[in-house]
């Protein structure tokens, strides 16, 4: 199951690589649609004579889809320089040198500021260093750049949960963890 999903994701990444030069394309939906977050009600608009009525879809939040989203940074358009800095940073974090990891990841951002995996790793390094505010912001940034990639988002929500817990915001942490679990379940069900 997992292998299939990964194969689909890789194929999708290749396809999107052909379609656009950088970033992930969301125009092709080769993946399956996963259960979505609950919908918010849409109020009726004013009626103009001569105009047809549009029935809004039941879903107002984008569905969680696997589409062609990259699983890891290797599947993205990141070049060898960014990949190398990312790997060095992960190594530094593992060795307990998160301040060094932070500096390496900032260099990666300097080269390519829009890779969600780099921002996620930066959030992780901030968290290691006890900067929970920064960790949450960087994780949010990663989510913004991930454009719906559930693999990245799940990790970000886990980081946000940890950051909120560290700040003593248990309620917020529970919410973030619930969101992470939702995505994880959706991915597992796929």
């Amino acid at each position, binding site marked *: 199951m997992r292998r299939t999903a990964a194969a689909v994701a890789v194929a999708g990444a290749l396809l999107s690589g052909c379609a656009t030069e950088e970033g992930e394309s969301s125009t092709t939906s080769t993946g399956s649609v996963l259960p979505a977050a609950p919908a918010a009600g849409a109020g009726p608009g004013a009626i103009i004579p001569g105009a*047809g*009525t549009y029935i809004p879809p039941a879903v107002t939040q984008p569905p969680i889809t696997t589409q062609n989203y990259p699983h890891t940074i290797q599947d993205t358009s990141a070049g060898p*320089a960014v990949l190398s800095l990312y790997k060095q940073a992960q190594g530094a974090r593992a060795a307990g040198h998160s301040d060094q990891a932070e*500096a390496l990841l900032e260099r990666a951002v300097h080269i390519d500021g829009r890779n969600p995996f780099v921002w996620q790793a930066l959030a992780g390094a901030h968290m290691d260093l006890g900067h929970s505010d920064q960790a949450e912001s960087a994780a949010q940034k990663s989510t913004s750049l991930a454009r719906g990639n559930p693999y990245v988002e799940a990790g970000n929500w886990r980081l946000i949960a940890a950051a909120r817990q560290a700040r003593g915001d248990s309620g917020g942490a529970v919410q973030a963890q619930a969101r992470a679990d939702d995505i994880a379940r959706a991915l597992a069900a796929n």
Partner: protein
Amino acid sequence: MARKKPRSGFFQSPLVRWLLIGLGLALSVGLLLFTLFLVKLDGDVRTRFAGVRWVLPAQVYAAPLEVYPGASLSLDQLRHELDRLGYRAGDELVGPGTYIVGKGSLRIDTRAFAFWDAAQPEQRVEVQADDKGIGGVRVMGSDQSLDLLRFDPMLIGSIYPSHSGEDRVLVKLSEVPPLLPQTLILVEDHNFYSHGGVSLRGIFRAAFANLRAGHTVQGASTLTQQLIKNLFLSNERTAKRKITEASMAILLERHVSKDEILEAYLNEVDLGQDGPRAVHGFGLASQYYFNKPLNELQPHEIAMLVAIVKGPSQYNPRRAVKLVTERRNLVLKMMADAGNITPDEYQEAVQKPLGVVSGSGGGAARYPAFVDLVRKQLAGLYQEADLTNEGLRIFTTLDPRVQEALENRISSDVPELEKSRRMVEGTLQGAGVVTSVEGGEVLAVVGGRDARYAGFNRAIDTRRPIGSLAKPFTYLTALEQPDKYNLQTPLDDSPIDLKLPNGQIWSPKNYDRQLHGEVPLYMALAKSYNLATVHLGLDVGIGKVKQTFAAAGFDDVPELPSAFLGAIDMSPLDVAQIYSTIASSGYLTPLLAIRAVLTKDGQPLNRYAFKLKHTLPEGPVYLTTWAMRKVIELGTAHWATSVLPAGQIYAGKTGTTEDLRDSWFSGFGSDRVAVIWVGRDDNKPTGFEGATGALRIWGKLMRDLNAKGIEPLPPADVEEVAVDPLSGLRADPGCGETVTVPFIRSAEPQQYAPCANASKSTPLNWIKSIFK
């Protein structure tokens, strides 16, 4: 017996006797006083020399050049960067800081450098180019290829004390190329290793030489005396000072080794004046005159530095080229005669020009406006004395390539604009700031049309009304209420009179003096309609708009309706701050010019990590950015499409203030934010709108920077809908012309436009079609 011996009358005179006694007493007292003086001096010399703490100004570095496969950098551009770093091109790699130009590649011997995160060793590499830029980086003599190569950063200035201007780069004797002290001793103090502080031989030789020449050609001071004079004494030419100097020199030699004296001399000697900055020591002089570290100097360069020790203001290598060349060649001759260089080296060296870099000396003091910003940001973080004395190493975000592009644009385009309006030469000014979209790094700052002039910094210190640059923040505030506003919402562009708190009536006008009736919200921003904006602003309230400004990074907004039209005083840097928050999708990152600070020994002291905060909602920011894209696509900044690369999307806003006093443009792509201001120091009208002045510079700048366009990927809470431009309602294939407009999800138009097939099936349309 002797007393009884008959004497000449002279000595028997009581007067003479008293005189002799007095003389003897005076001599004894004098000797005693001189001894006391020497004892005191000895103590002085010891404590003062031991207590010599070099004034070690903080050294400021640019961001290092990073070269990696895929980097959009041509070999020519890379060569330009290497030249800027003081690397020398040649036929072979003779040490760090040299390179060879090959076919389709450069072979480079890089300099070692201790960065914050790692020490980088010297490396010999080959950089290959492909059609996109850098193709690959290979370590020479191995199969190893590098993913990333970081060059030593450029030294761009120092934070020296303002009262003395004393600046230096400390060197250790062990790290200095031996030819330098050899030559120095040869020329300035031949017997340095044998004399005891003063040299009688030297004095005689100098006196003889001076007599023969008829004027002073040689000084007799030893290096020790010169050092004493420079360190402790004034410049006056009195016998007393000379005696003190000689005494102290002798005493110093009793306590301190020759090498210590030599090292102190190398760091203390005055080697030039750069405006308010005094260039002390060979370490800094090497950077100042040759833009490279001391250990890379060649014999003719060492000879020149030693030549100017005699008097750096008279022997100024940038002014008295002939005089300095003559003396340098004299020094080279002495070096050859002493066997310190070979006859071949001598022949080669005397042929060479001085090789002094132009301007204010390589990197140092080359970017005054940027270093000014660094200084201001540091002032809030460190004590002044720590900055001027501790030799801190400051790593900044300055990107010399971006800085060069900005300087070139402003220095060439501002005079051109000035000419086009037949203004008096030198009256039009310009300033600019470029930052990164992510990370809030200040990449370039230019404070005036003469970028090298270290004066008034218009990029930071001038606060001028920003005019229509303020408008996006009012629109953003409105778009944050998706139930009330979207990009299609019709705005009322009709006259309005407002009573101000001071009782005056304010009646804003459109720039074109026309009324446009009802205009879609995005069009009102694209065309910069004042009346529609004031109506919108009054509707959402100045308090809310002020909050939006604060969330973007600026909180000094007056609570007056004129603020909707930009009666807000801001510097270009302030503008860069608020625009970068929009450019990065609503994440506020305080703009910072400093990345890390190390101690003089290279130990990490502080690092300034990216600090970001999500302050503005992403969806409305996306919508606002979409409207700002229209400013360029079809609005007031349409001119920019004539210079920007086709197919790339940028967003921005023009700004013009009353009577055309200030011309602004601020805009961004996906990696760069750039702000340009054009105006006059006396605040008189310039005749330029934002679109005819600043925009011209901005457009070409973004092109020169190769700035990446925006990726138009909407965030999760935004849906793009095809709408009929006439009604602003949903379109489908039944409509001829449609525009795709982003809406906040759940607030997209609910109805189909009359042109849509979905509408045509209604009874009304069916009837209409019958009667057509």
